[in-house]
């Protein structure tokens, strides 16, 4: 006979344990969104596109680092610069934005999850903040990941900046990465707020990020339109801002745009705010309860 027997009261019952503060719901949804977008905890087919896009974004960094490590007598000028990198991965960045924001926003509208979220300790503003955090966090993988990887590898290979210059370069990488991620997140979320269909939103994001650049550059270079027109193609202006943050000029020694740094910075920030406002306005009017 044993005296160690215990009776466990298992099963559903009342809960009188600790509860998180309402702000915690924002972080929970942001994390859930980021994991969902990357296909984590989902089937293999949901992981394919994010993995391919991430690979495209990282491949130039890997080649540059490999070149630096394997080839003798390499100097920093032979390697891809940080400013150039943003420009090189521009297409991958746009494709990633077209993947991330629609996946973050559209299914919630389509499946009625939006109504379930708003029936809990979230309101529309907090919901959008959570989604924005999730989208921006995932965008950081592309806007910050390769640059930080290159910085670390260059420093370890002895090709990086001096110890005194490294913190300054790190801050520049963070500034450029954060601004670029915010811009792409804001614009892609604004487009995605108009539809519950992922494919339609993805097409819309691609059109918004690619078409104005082509039209505006043609207008300026061929038709002699004023340079300020560049402000309408915010991704292009964002690359320009990244060059200026890193203190670089493109290989042809011309600035990407012929605008002042203040105008470039203001243009990018205005585009971020405009995208966020469009998204906010759309969700304010959205019928979430059905």
């Amino acid at each position: 006979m044993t005296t160690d027997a215990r009776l466990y009261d298992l099963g559903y019952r009342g809960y009188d344990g600790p509860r998180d503060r309402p702000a915690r719901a924002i972080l929970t949804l942001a994390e859930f969104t980021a994991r969902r977008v990357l296909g984590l905890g989902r089937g293999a087919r949901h992981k394919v596109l994010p993995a391919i896009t991430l690979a495209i974004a990282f491949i130039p960094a890997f080649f540059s680092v490999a070149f630096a490590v394997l080839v003798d007598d390499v100097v920093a000028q032979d390697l891809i610069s940080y400013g150039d990198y943003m420009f090189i991965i521009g297409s991958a960045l746009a494709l990633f934005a077209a993947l991330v924001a629609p996946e973050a926003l559209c299914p919630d509208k389509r499946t009625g999850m939006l109504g379930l979220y708003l029936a809990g300790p979230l309101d529309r503003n907090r919901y959008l903040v959570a989604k924005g955090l999730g989208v921006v966090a995932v965008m950081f993988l592309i806007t910050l990941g390769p640059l930080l990887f290159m910085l670390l590898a260059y420093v370890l290979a002895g090709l990086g900046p001096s110890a005194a210059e490294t913190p300054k370069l790190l801050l520049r990488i963070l500034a450029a990465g954060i601004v670029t991620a915010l811009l792409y997140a804001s614009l892609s979320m604004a487009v995605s707020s108009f539809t519950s269909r992922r494919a339609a939103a993805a097409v819309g994001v691609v059109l918004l990020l690619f078409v104005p650049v082509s039209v505006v550059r043609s207008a300026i270079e061929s038709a002699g339109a004023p340079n300020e027109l560049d402000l309408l193609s915010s991704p292009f202006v964002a690359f320009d801002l990244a060059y200026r943050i890193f203190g670089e000029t493109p290989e042809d020694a011309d600035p990407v745009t012929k605008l002042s740094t203040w105008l470039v910075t203001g243009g990018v920030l205005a585009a971020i705010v405009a995208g966020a406002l469009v998204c906010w306005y759309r969700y304010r009017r959205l019928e979430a309860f059905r």
Partner: protein
Amino acid sequence: MEQAVVSARGVVKRYGRTVALAGLDADIGSGITGLLGSNGAGKTTFISLVLGLRSRDEGELTVLGQDPATAGIPVRSRIGYAPEHHDLPAELSATDFVRHLAEMHLLPRRAAVQRANDALWLVGLGEERFRPVGLMSTGQRQRVKLASAIAHDPELVLLDEPTDGLDPMQRTEMLALIRRIGTEFGVHIVLSSHHLEEAERICDAVVIVEGGEVVRAGALADLRRGPEGLVVEVDERADELASILRARGLEVTADGGVLLLGAAEDAFDAVRDAVADLGVGLRRLEPRGRTLEDVYLGAGA
């Protein structure tokens, strides 16, 4: 006096020129309350106001002692909600879905995992909890929604048509489950439905809404209380039984094979003796009352 779980006074909600709620007055108390009415009566609009998801145009509304229009997040933290639609994220497993919503209702991760499993076992999906929701039947999805509504241990649960799409057997099981949650775990439940018999089976009280107004409300027992007397049903020879009972001074109305007896002190004894004397089988002997359908139709609905 017990404080109402939900109290509405003169609540008005308009959508443009359409008046969805036209001065709704209701007190929803503890236990299980049926929110009844036909489609378009204003039930879903009322639920959205209770959740603080829409703003009312006029009137006063308190939910668990707070105004959801100004204290939406604190109120919703204490509420569980299962919507009418079945469109849930298809690739999520039931346990991930319920855990996620429990976390969204501010349960710490570990507690959310534990309670998601407990809630799914309670609703009979313990063995199926790792299946993707998209591969589940309508009945199973209804149970998943119920589990997600109770996993964070809310004080009030709003269930919008929880038996929609279920076959009779599943419906009976679901109603028994809701009744159990409302009685055994002390959760106040508002059951929105247009099936009167569901409310009749499990609710303590009902609020009947039509045209954006409450046309009847109260404890089910009070609403169903009809004229005093008995209902008697026998296998055969109902006419002879009626004659015998009349001869004994009882007021008897025959309705086919069913006899409706007026109130009398010795009515039960008289029926017993008469049935024994005739040697017929007694099918039904019960106090007269009204069904919820009588109440509903009597309300002009």
